[in-house]
């Protein structure tokens, strides 16, 4: 391993940090860069809670240790103020820093490599137009040999396929635009594709469903478990507003994604929806299961006393709870997200009207939680019941992760309830 590492180490000499020439202030370019930065959701990973936008420092706990996101404000010393446009494009394209050292793939260059030079230029111009923030962060805490950046050359050889996105000439412009955004800048697969033991997205299983900050990221291809099939219109509305009447509110790590997408040109959101809905294929909406299917259990009493006030389907979204036959939390393949929302609730957004849900962490014990989840599944979903082992395992995991990804207020901030339906 040492030999390989040495052979792959960067040979570029360190260069002094001087301010890079700033791109000309072109309003249209900056606006496009801002929209693209939102589509790439740069802010969420590069901003601490209560921190300055893009100043970095967010810890990412991986199987190999903790990586801290970097400061991507134009501060010369601690940010990217010394980076030239060419160096920025190279980082996006090849996953290397200013001096040519490998970046860790927590930064999703496996997707960003598909972004066009034109789009990279707009993002660069936008980031360089932000207020510089001086912010230094802790060093990454990684295990050997991953702690040596050069070791990423091996990872890259195995899993990194650099190169531009290829349009499918047989498909529509919107489809190709959507595919470009989903596979490239949007890096949807970062969460929605399962990863292998090396932390790489599993080839051939794109968008089959993965994990993010303790949450299950649902399959968003033909394996989608959404009880009501998504349409181009409903998915566009969901991405734009953070909620949709047939599907509920975005929550967990998806909530900041839809928050960012709110101001993106609707044409781009519709393109994403066109592409994803094509992948999902069409199927008929499933009727809700009959009440008689679910045997009475303690879960039924807990539902009646704790859930039904908001979730009986009589209060309109987004402030009322979703009717559970429409909830993918109940119909998804894993009960993880259902446990996450019951345990940790949906925290209210500060100073804004937004959907929220109380946390039941202290109110219900493990047996009651598994009974409730099992009963909800049989009562409100047509999918196979979850097994006892699956329920216990997912509850244990949801508790172990302690709701790290549950800190985000639900999507639908500052929303007009008349929209999204």
């Amino acid at each position, binding site marked *: 391993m040492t030999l390989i590492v040495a052979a792959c180490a960067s040979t570029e000499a360190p260069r002094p940090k001087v301010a890079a020439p700033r791109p000309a202030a072109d309003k249209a370019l900056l606006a496009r860069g801002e929209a693209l930065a939102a589509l790439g959701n740069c802010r969420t990973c590069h901003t601490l809670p209560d921190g300055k936008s893009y100043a970095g420092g967010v810890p990412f706990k991986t199987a190999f240790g903790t990586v801290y996101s970097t400061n991507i404000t134009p501060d010369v010393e601690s940010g990217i103020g010394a980076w030239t446009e060419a160096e920025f494009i190279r980082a996006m394209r090849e996953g290397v820093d200013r001096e040519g050292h490998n970046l860790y793939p927590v930064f999703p260059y496996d997707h960003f490599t598909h972004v066009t030079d034109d789009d990279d230029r707009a993002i660069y111009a936008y980031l360089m137009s932000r207020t510089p923030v001086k912010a230094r962060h802790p060093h990454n805490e990684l295990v050997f040999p991953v702690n040596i950046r050069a070791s990423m050359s091996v990872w890259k050889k195995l899993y990194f396929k650099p190169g531009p996105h290829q349009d499918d000439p047989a498909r529509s412009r919107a489809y190709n635009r959507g595919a470009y955004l989903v596979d490239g800048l949007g890096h949807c697969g970062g969460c929605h594709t399962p990863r292998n033991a090396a932390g790489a997205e599993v080839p051939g299983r794109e968008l089959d469903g993965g994990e993010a900050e303790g949450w299950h990221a649902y399959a968003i291809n033909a394996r989608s478990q959404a009880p009501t099939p998504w349409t181009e219109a409903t998915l566009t509305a969901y991405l734009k507003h953070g909620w949709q009447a047939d599907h509920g509110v975005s929550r967990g790590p998806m909530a900041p994604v839809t928050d960012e997408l709110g101001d993106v040109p609707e044409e781009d959101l519709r393109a994403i929806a066109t592409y994803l809905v094509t992948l999902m294929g069409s199927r008929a909406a499933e009727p809700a299961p009959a009440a008689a299917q679910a045997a009475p259990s303690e879960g039924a009493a807990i539902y009646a006393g704790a859930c039904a006030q908001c979730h009986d389907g009589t209060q309109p979204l987004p402030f009322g709870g979703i009717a559970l036959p429409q909830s993918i939390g109940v119909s998804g393949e894993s009960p993880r997200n259902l446990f996450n929302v019951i345990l940790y609730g949906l925290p209210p957004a500060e100073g804004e009207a937004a959907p929220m849900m109380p946390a039941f*962490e202290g*109110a*219900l014990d493990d047996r009651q939680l598994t009974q409730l989840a099992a009963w909800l599944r049989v009562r409100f979903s047509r999918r196979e019941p979850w097994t006892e082992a699956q329920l216990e395992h997912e509850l244990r995991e949801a508790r172990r992760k302690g709701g790290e990804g549950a800190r985000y207020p639900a999507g639908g901030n500052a929303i007009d309830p008349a929209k999204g339906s």
Partner: protein
Amino acid sequence: MKLDVNGQVHDIASEPDTPLLYVLRDELHLNGAKYGCGLGQCGACTVLADGEAIFSCVTPVAALGGRRITTLEGLGTAARPGAVQRAFIEEQAAQCGFCIPGMIVRAEALLRAHPDPTEAQIRTALQPHLCRCGTHMRILKAVRRAAKA
């Protein structure tokens, strides 16, 4: 079913899916916990279950057999208020007072888990509680005072 409230075991006649708040107020005549929103969003109904703060308005009594419930009444009496209650009185932390029972119970849970909480811990703990009149600074002071008591 049987329910342990403030150290006393009661026979409960209510249906198992009845929220605890109704059992406390209507059956046991313990009116400390208040009905605010009925949706677990305002915190006025907060009580302790085995020391953990819960919203009694959205917790069915069926879920609480075998757990020890503590309400505001269990923390002290008008003649002999508990430490947190005393701190709230001394800081005059109530304006209309409707939300205060929940705040006191939440503060009790906080101080049992963190006897010397930071300002951030106090604010985070009280975050699920709405107060429409506005003695917020006095409420914070009262919790700090109770921590020092």
